[in-house]
């Protein structure tokens, strides 16, 4: 069985090849994929998702360009030894605990889920302004 299985969100508006790129990066960051692991072949992916095989190859080329994977002709595409390191538990866990506390106090203050998401989105847009400038509304 392959280490990971791709999924598609047709309503996201994110191009299919980018969805695959994000999913591999995510899997590497959370150590679901480790260096040396083989990614599904184009054929395996298309028979799973009914997408164009060139889309898979395009995603793998992009990942290779960014140093996440390397391809060995005839053998497949593998996670690189020097792929950007997984998120360390020592970093991840305290962040998660702070977030839990924050959400806890928002709920205690009477905010519902949508209000929390809206608040987070505002904060994220301030923290990563370049994304917002592309699609969002200018303040």
């Amino acid at each position, binding site marked *: 069985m392959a280490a990971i299985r791709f999924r598609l969100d*047709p309503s996201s508006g994110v191009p299919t090849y980018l969805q695959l790129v994000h999913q591999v990066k995510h899997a590497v960051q959370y150590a679901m994929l480790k260096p040396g692991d083989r990614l599904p*072949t184009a054929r395996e992916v*298309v028979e799973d998702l009914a997408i164009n095989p*060139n889309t898979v190859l395009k995603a793998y080329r992009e990942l290779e360009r960014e140093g996440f994977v390397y391809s060995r002709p005839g053998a497949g595409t593998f996670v690189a030894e020097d792929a950007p390191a997984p998120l360390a538990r020592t970093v991840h866990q305290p962040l998660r605990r702070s977030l839990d506390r924050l959400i806890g106090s928002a709920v205690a203050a009477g905010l519902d889920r949508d209000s929390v998401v809206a608040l987070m989105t505002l904060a994220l847009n301030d923290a990563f302004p370049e994304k917002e400038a592309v699609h969002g*509304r200018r303040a």
Partner: protein
Amino acid sequence: MDVVLETSGLTKRYGRTEALRGCDLSLAGGKVTGLVGPNGAGKTTLLNIAVGLHRPTAGRIRVLGLDPWRDAVAVLSRVGFVAQDRPLHRGFTVAETLEIGRRLNPRWDHAYALARVKHFGLPLDRPVRSLSTGQHAQVALTLALGKRPEVLLLDEPVANLDPVARLELLEELMGVVAEDGPSVILSSNVLADVERVCEYVVILVDGRVRISGDADELVRSHVVVSGPRRGAHDRADDGEVIEVRHAERQTTRLLRGRAAPSDDGTEVRPATLEEIVVGYLRADREEVSK
């Protein structure tokens, strides 16, 4: 990659009806191309001419460099075709259907065809009429694939299929593309499918190509701009307005080009392929009705 299908000024008249009106098209090989357009735009006529079923009234068409009307035998030995409604002899069994494929096609790969049918768990002795629509579609596709075609032409390959059968057929088709790499040209009105499998898109309207291009490039070059209706016509956006839709206080436009969001509440977002196709089709229909 070489051009697999090329037309210039291709025209087809049936009596007074003009199904194709000077259609110019050039499709590179090794791709999956989607032909989209309203019913009657000429998709089926184009595909039928490409396999030599119809003779053009005027203009030129080349498939793999050959004239499909004059060299129909040569074209058909290298081009697989599944017509609309996937016609098969309903009284024949699956085995007999494949046997016809074997006898009619010099390049037929019988072992491959049998393996495909076995893969779907289709009993060879079942008559075609007893198959489900999905199974019927798989047999029709196998009949086109058995000759190991360089080009595969499919007219509405997923029409009438239930969602599961539709996905299975597309998965199969993309598996074949991954394995053997034939060029595929398919017509479809299911834009979600076109978006999923096609890397090149041709929008046909009224027997002509309205716009064509790489699917990614089309998506990158179109945006949807929506904002207050008042002042919308003053906006200086950099591009061609394809379609405008007004609500009482709001205007939404499909734009080929770029636009910037502004502080009057105007939002800009990338268009989906579906919005692009529908935008062009609707814009042209409004043009006609004026």
